[in-house]
C-alpha cells in the first residue's frame, strides 16, 4: 500500500481513491474509441498491408520474389518463348512468359519482402483485407485474382514537404532533359547552318535564341541542375535570363 511518490503522502487520505474515481468519470464523458468495424469501415493508413496485388504486365518472371519469400508462399510457373528478330537478319530473342503466379495467403506472413525485392514494380500492397474464406485452399490467390487486387491499390501518398525527389522521377527527367537538349542543339545547329547559309555577312542577334528556349536548355548549357537539384522548373525559370545573359 506504500505510495512510491513522496508528494502523495502529504495529501489528505483518500485523495488517491478520489482521483481514480475522477479518471473513470472523465473517461465516461469522453468520446469512445470503439471502431464499429462491420458497420463502419476502418480508416486504414496508407501503405496498409492488406493483400498483395500483382501488376503482371510488369512481371518478367525473374523469380526474385519467390526466392526471397521467407515462407515460400509464392508459386510461379513460366515458359520461354522466342520472339522473332526485331530487324530482318537480327538474332531471335527469348522471353519469359508467365503461366501461373499464385500467393498462398494462408502461409503469407505479410512481411512485404517480395514487394521490396521486385525490381520491376510488379507487386504492390493493397489495403483490402476482407478476403477471409471458409476453405483454406481458397486463400491461394491465383494470377487473375492477384491482378484484380491491383485495382484496389491506392495512389502512393504525397511526399513529405521538403523530401528528396523520387529517384525514378529524377532519372526520367534527366533522360527527358538530355533528349530535349540534344534536340535543341540539333535545331540550333540546323538554324545556325541555315542562317549562315542565307546571310553570311550579317552579325548574330545577342542571345535571341536562348530567351525563347525552355529552362531545360539553359540547364544543360550551364549545368545548374547539379548545383540545385531540388529546384523546381518554376523556381529556376526567373533566373534563366540572367544565366543566359551571363
Amino acid at each position, binding site marked *: 500500500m506504500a505510495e512510491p511518490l513522496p508528494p502523495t503522502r502529504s495529501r489528505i487520505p483518500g485523495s488517491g481513491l478520489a482521483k481514480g474515481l475522477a479518471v*473513470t*468519470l472523465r473517461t465516461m464523458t469522453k468520446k*469512445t474509441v470503439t471502431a464499429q468495424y462491420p458497420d463502419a469501415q476502418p480508416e486504414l493508413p496508407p501503405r496498409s498491408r492488406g493483400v498483395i496485388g500483382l501488376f503482371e504486365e510488369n512481371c518478367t518472371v525473374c523469380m526474385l520474389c519467390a526466392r526471397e519469400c521467407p515462407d515460400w508462399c509464392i508459386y510461379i510457373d513460366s515458359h520461354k518463348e522466342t520472339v522473332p528478330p526485331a530487324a530482318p537478319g537480327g538474332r531471335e530473342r527469348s522471353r519469359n512468359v508467365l503461366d501461373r503466379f499464385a500467393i498462398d495467403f494462408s502461409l503469407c506472413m505479410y512481411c512485404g519482402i517480395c514487394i521490396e525485392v521486385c525490381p520491376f514494380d510488379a507487386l504492390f500492397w493493397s489495403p483490402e483485407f476482407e478476403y477471409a474464406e471458409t476453405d483454406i485452399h481458397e486463400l491461394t490467390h491465383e494470377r487473375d485474382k492477384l491482378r484484380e487486387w491491383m485495382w484496389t491499390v491506392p495512389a502512393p501518398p504525397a511526399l513529405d514537404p521538403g523530401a528528396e525527389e523520387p529517384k525514378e522521377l529524377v532519372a526520367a527527367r534527366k533522360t527527358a532533359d538530355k533528349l530535349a537538349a540534344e534536340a535543341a542543339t540539333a535545331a540550333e545547329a540546323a538554324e545556325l547552318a541555315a542562317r549562315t547559309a542565307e546571310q553570311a555577312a550579317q552579325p548574330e542577334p545577342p542571345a535571341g535564341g536562348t530567351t525563347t528556349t525552355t529552362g531545360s536548355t539553359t540547364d544543360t548549357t550551364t549545368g545548374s541542375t547539379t548545383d540545385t537539384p531540388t529546384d523546381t522548373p518554376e523556381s529556376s525559370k526567373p533566373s534563366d535570363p540572367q544565366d543566359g545573359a551571363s
Partner: protein
Amino acid sequence: MNDALDVALRLLVVFVVFLTFPLIVGQTEHKVMAHMQGRLGPMYAGGFHGWAQLVADGVKFAQKEDIVPAGADRRIFQLAPAVALLPYLLVLLAIPIGPGEGAVGQVVDAGIFFVLAVMGVGVLGSLMAGWASANKFSLLGGLRTAAQLLAYELPMLLTAASVAMAAGTVSLPGIVAAFEWWWVPWQLVGAVVFFVAGLAELQRPPFDMPVADSEIIFGAYTEYTGLRFALFLLAEYAGIVVLCGLTTVLFLGGWHGPWGADGLGWVWTLLKAALLAFVVIWLRVTYPRLREDQLQKLSWTLLIPLSLAQIALTGIVKVVIS
C-alpha cells in the same frame, strides 16, 4: 377475497421488480463500464444500443446444457443457486419505496433484522456451491466467501443498529418516516461503512476476492453453467438492487425529497437507489481487487472501529437532543 387479491398483486409486483431491476442494473453496468473504459459496450442485441443484451444472454443460458460434475454432491450442487437467489426476493418484499402501506410488499416489524438476517442466508448458497462442486477452486472460493461474510457482517449490523438507534425503531418504514435531512451528515460514516460492507457481502469488485477470476477461475461458481449459473449472476445483481434500496431507506431518507412528498415519493426512492447502483458500478470500474489480507484488514481494523464510533456518536447526539 379482496385480501387474497391484494397479497397476490403485491407478490406479483415484487416478483416483477425482482426480475426486471437486476437486468436494468446489469445493462447499466454493461454500458457504464464500457464508456468508462472508452468503449461502446453491447450495440447489437435488440437494435437500439444493445438494450436486449441481457435478455439474449438469458436465452443463451437457458439453451445451455445443465452439467453437474461427476464427483459433485448432486443435490446440494443443484440446490445452491436457489438458496443464493431466494433470500434477495424475500428481502425485496420488505423494502418500502414510498410512504404508506401501499408502497411496501409486506411491513415487517423488525425490518432491519429481517433484511440483514435473510441477506446473510444468501451467502449459504455460495458456500454450498463451493463445497459441493468437488473442485479445489470452488472450495477456495467458498472459504473466501465465508471469511469475507464473517468479517463484513459485523460492521453492517453495527451501522444498521446505529440508524435504528437514531430512529428509535427497527422497522424500515418507521426509520424512513423518522428521517430528517440532517441525518445524512450525522450518519455519514455509518452510511459509507454500511455500503462498503454491503458491497463486500455481495462480493462485488473491489471486494470480489471469492470469485477472483484471475486466481481461482470463478470461485464457488466455477463448475456452474447454464441456468444455474445465470441464477447466481441474477442473485448478484438482485443483491445490488437490494443493497442500494436498503442504503437509500436507511441512510438517504427513502422517499423524502424537496418535491414530490404527495404521491411521488417512490420516484425519489428509485432515483436515490439508481444513483447508488451507479456508484456500485463506478467503484467496480475504478478500483482493483483487494487482496485477501487487505480485505480482512479493511474490515477488522477500519470498518468495525468506524462503525463503533458511529454508534457512539449516534448515542451521544441522541441523548443530547432528547
